[in-house]
């Protein structure tokens, strides 16, 4: 029972059921959560697996393919979604407005379906359909609160994302016109560096960068992710934006290495570096908890793009092959866990304190000690301190940068890490202040809302401590370009 099809069929069925059930859709998560964890775990033990849907092999049909890269993210997604689902069931149960809960559950399963589809799919049009499902559900989640500010943020997100959809679709159409297939594996075999292919690669990449909020397309992300309800923010930051980056990785490392070169590496690395620096500086300038966490996502996504210039650098000078690529994958995994934990913790803190203004958070660590502790643990992983998954990721990327004598990229990572310590120290400091702000009163919150973020934060930590298994998993069927680099 390790069929990739089930991993998309199950959340899809839950999505349809949730539309029917409305607010009672919350109950489904107690079945889907554990079931998806078991199914993804089984798949991770069975990879590599290929399943041609409908029995039709590409290029006529669509195949789902599970390699180590997909399996690692599928397990991470299942863990994040199951915990966020349990959190949301409690979070919305206390909500006096049934509208938000009724709308949340179909959107929640739509996101889960789309992320799994994107991880398993290799067909460009099928990926486009997955991106559409992801985008529409994501935008609707941002608008859930219904305040004027969140509606504006949702609309801005929609415009950026639709721009990305259009360019992605035109690029896919060009590739189909040129190669008569949309399957990535078949495209990789036939690929020739001609005008149409270069134009398509540029269009698809720009579209994915816009959807992933990579600098200079980042402007939509902070208000959107900060304005959504806490469980939605967690999904958006941990999974939704990352899905676009993962397609970008697949595209360039699996299909397009013949088009890659120094220019692409410098461009992608440059955008990543700008995202790290800009996002971190903006995060320092915020004085509310959720915007800090949201700007941190802008910065953390930047690290992923550093894999472009660093992959394959210093070939043979390192004991691990594909280290920089693996480092980026580890970074995405640990960021997914830590960022989801952080947004859930922020949501619990906001419920308790009634605000997320840093100067009003004094004494909150006494009111919600476990959630505050979870926030700190997640911060340790985001800063890249040992023994977290974030540390391992940065360690792999940094050693590659130094071995290849690419001091520039190393400097970006070191400065980014220091800036992360600054922007995360402010909220941690605010949480730990013993004296409550004047007139502050703390509400009691259910235990689940404190334990859920702790579970994810500890998972981010365990990713660093028990890194051997995930490391081995990621290497199954990894792309050749991960070893040789995009030269």
């Amino acid at each position: 029972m390790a069929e990739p099809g089930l991993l998309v069929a199950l959340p899809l069925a839950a999505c349809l059921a949730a539309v029917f059930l409305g607010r009672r859709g919350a109950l489904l998560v107690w079945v889907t959560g554990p079931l998806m964890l078991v199914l993804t775990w089984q798949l991770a033990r069975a990879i590599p697996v290929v399943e041609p849907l409908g029995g039709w092999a590409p290029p006529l049909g669509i195949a789902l393919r599970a390699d180590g890269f997909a399996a690692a993210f599928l397990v991470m997604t299942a863990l994040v979604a199951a915990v966020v689902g349990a959190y949301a069931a409690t979070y919305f149960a206390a909500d006096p407005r049934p509208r938000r809960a009724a709308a949340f559950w179909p959107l929640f399963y739509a996101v889960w379906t789309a992320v799994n589809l994107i991880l398993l799919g290799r067909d460009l049009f099928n990926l486009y359909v997955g991106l559409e499902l992801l985008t529409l559900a994501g935008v609707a989640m941002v608008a859930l609160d219904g305040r004027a500010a969140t509606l504006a943020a949702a609309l801005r997100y929609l415009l950026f994302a639709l721009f990305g959809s259009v360019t992605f679709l035109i690029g896919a159409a060009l590739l189909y016109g040129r190669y008569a297939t949309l399957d990535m594996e078949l495209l990789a075999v036939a690929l020739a560096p001609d005008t149409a292919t270069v134009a398509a690669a540029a269009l698809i990449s720009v579209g994915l960068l816009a959807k992933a909020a990579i600098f200079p397309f980042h402007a939509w992300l902070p208000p959107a992710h900060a304005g959504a309800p806490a469980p939605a923010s967690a999904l958006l930051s941990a999974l939704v934006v990352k899905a676009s980056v993962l397609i970008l990785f697949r595209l360039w490392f699996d299909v397009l290495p013949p088009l890659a070169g120094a220019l692409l590496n410098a461009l992608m690395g440059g955008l990543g570096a700008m995202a790290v620096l800009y996002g971190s500086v903006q995060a320092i300038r915020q004085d509310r908890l959720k915007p800090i966490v949201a700007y941190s996502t802008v910065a953390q996504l930047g690290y992923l793009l550093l894999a472009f210039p660093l992959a394959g650098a210093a070939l043979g000078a390192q004991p691990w092959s594909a280290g920089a690529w693996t480092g980026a994958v580890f970074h995405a995994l640990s960021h997914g866990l830590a960022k989801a934990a952080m947004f859930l913790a922020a949501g619990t803190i906001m419920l308790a304190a009634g605000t997320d203004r840093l100067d009003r958070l004094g004494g909150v660590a006494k009111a919600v000690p476990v959630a505050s502790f979870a926030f700190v643990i997640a911060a340790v992983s985001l800063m890249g301190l040992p023994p977290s998954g974030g540390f391992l990721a940065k360690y792999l990327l940094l050693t590659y940068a130094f071995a290849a004598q690419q001091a520039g990229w190393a400097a970006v990572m070191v400065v980014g890490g220091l800036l992360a310590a600054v922007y995360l120290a402010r909220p941690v400091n605010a949480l730990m202040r013993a004296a409550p702000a004047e007139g502050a009163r703390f509400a009691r919150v259910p235990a689940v809302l404190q334990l859920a973020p702790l579970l994810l934060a500890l998972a981010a930590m365990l990713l660093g401590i028990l890194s051997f298994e995930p490391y081995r998993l990621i290497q199954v069927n990894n792309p050749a370009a991960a070893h040789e680099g995009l030269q």
Partner: protein
Amino acid sequence: MIASAAFDILLCLLIVTVAVGSVAARDLFGAVALYIVYGLLLAIGWVRLGAVDVGLAEGAIGAGLTGVLLLGAAARLKAAPDPPRLRIVPLLLCLAVSLGLGAAVLSLSVPQPGLVPLVQENLAASGVGNPVTAVLLNFRGWDTLVESVVLVVALVGVWALAPDDLWDGRPGAAQRVKRDAVLNTFGRLLPPVGLMVGIYIVWIGAYAPGGAFQAGTVLAAVWLLAIMAGVAEPPPVRRPLWRALLVLGPAVFLLAGLHGTLWGAFMSFAPAKAKTMIMAIEFTLTLSIAVTLAMLVLGRPRRPA
């Protein structure tokens, strides 16, 4: 030969002119009207290219449904947006992108058979005679299933924009129509005809151009007409029957796909049963698409149930 070439050139010129007119139109309503004309011309263009299915979809969804949605949006915008101004930098950027795209398209060697031979080869095993339906429901049914869910999710997103106290209420404004007035009469006369057309389009989709998305649009239009004419009332969102209708088509499709895992692969149909299953999916999908599209046009709930 010359006549058809002249027609095509004229059509292309018209499409470009109407597109520019729509972008440059001074008022919103004019822009939308030209956009609808643009969609209809585009539909003729697809027919000229021999892609009748795409033409049908473009006419029904691109021009018709999108046009209605845009008209509704334009009517609700109180303040008119600033009239378009000519900006040099974006203009140059657009020109560069257009030229690049043009060069890329021209660099493709035409005509390419694409996957047509492969589709023809496997058509017999697909259960239907129309190659487009074979691709949409069988070879790439997974795409179509997810797309139909995208529509439902979009509707949930629209509902979520309702005020908290009305979120499960009735969408659309109350219609006050005089009995025996023109609209009311049309509202009684046209639906039976439209219903027949819709059922025909989905049935014929198995052999010739047609199918669930086009038929769903026709049925949605019929229902909307009946609502606008005051013959029918839009149902409240809280009523389970209507929410069940929304998900019926995708659910039947998904169950059929899961049934496939029992004997072959996920989303597969046994050739002997394929025709029956595809028609069952098409009909339920048509119903769900019709309800979803109509409710998208009706918008968020704004009246108590």
